[in-house]
């Protein structure tokens, strides 16, 4: 298991809602997205699969290139592929921005 953390200080738009999507099942993950306590976005990841920090960073960089909400994201991961990670993040945004 590995713990990863990332900060995106430029995501400063205030959000008010919470979202919980996904299941920590094989090849899937859960996302808890909620308003950040401090300025900017913060992401913490707990994954059962070690050694993919660069892939996580690439997916999150791309996600925060388009999304500007000041959110705190926590991910519990059981081996979601980068495509699934992006879909789950977008699904959480759909809930939070609804």
């Amino acid at each position, binding site marked *: *298991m590995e713990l990863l953390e990332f900060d995106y200080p430029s995501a400063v738009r205030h959000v008010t809602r919470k979202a*919980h999507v996904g299941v*920590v099942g094989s090849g899937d993950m859960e996302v*808890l997205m*909620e308003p950040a306590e401090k300025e900017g976005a913060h992401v913490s990841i707990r994954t*059962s699969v070690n050694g993919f920090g660069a892939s996580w960073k690439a997916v999150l960089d791309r996600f925060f290139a388009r999304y500007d909400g000041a959110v705190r994201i926590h991910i519990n991961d*059981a081996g979601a592929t980068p495509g699934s990670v992006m879909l789950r993040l977008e699904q959480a945004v759909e809930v939070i921005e609804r």
Partner: protein
Amino acid sequence: MSTTIAAPAFVNRHSFIELDARARAQSLMDPGSWRELVGPFDRIESPWLPLQGIAPQSDDGCVVLKGTIAAAPSVVIALEGGFQAGSMGEVSGAKMTAALDLATQDSQKGKKTTAVLLLETGGVRLQEANLGLAAIAEVMASMLVLREHAPIITVIAGTVGCFGGLALAAGLSSYIVMTREARLGMNGPEVIEQESGIEEFDASDRGLIWAINGGEQRVAMGVADELVLDDAQEIAAAVQSYVKAGLPQVHRSQQVELYRRRIAALDTSGQIDPLTLRQSWNNKSREEGKR
């Protein structure tokens, strides 16, 4: 020119199996009536899984919703089959037990509260060993108290099914609703094959597995009450009808003498086939099994 292709009915069916535990629980309750107890943002998760290199889930795979079903006070407790095969750990067990005990307390104060268990589980979470076993004992003890006051309705929809200790818990419930896709059994097929050999049970033979553990067989032999389609509306309607029916005259697990007689009467000189068991145990055609 236009052509209309009539879609078969199953295309428009709202699958229950495809829903996750939370959505399943929500689909059974009166809209707007429910709130979640100890939800994912409370982050009460397993302390044992991370120690073993396994990512936990923020609700430990157990969803508890309090609200009403058919306007009657109810609690729905749903296990998430996608997370660690719906297995029962220390935290998910404590959530289930506490929810049942709260329903008992409310019932004792005059607010009769029905419990609905959505069991999608392989039983004890092996990574939590004795704590999981203890949790199942607590769940069963709490069920025995609650069912003095209000019915406990178990729904096994699939596709994990309900095995191990929680199959025993299912046996304590007032009513069991199953789909054709669901399975109910003590030891799972892989466990039997591993322990007793492929001659005893071939875990790759899906026909054999469903003929023995499948919902159709379990309902036909009288150890479950109703066979439903994998349809969220149909399952909700079945649950509502049992909420309205209230407590059965006698719980199945109290019919000790009936099942002793039946087991004693089985001809074990040859392999018993599932169809024969159906015919001899079918409660609907035999007065003795009615409750």
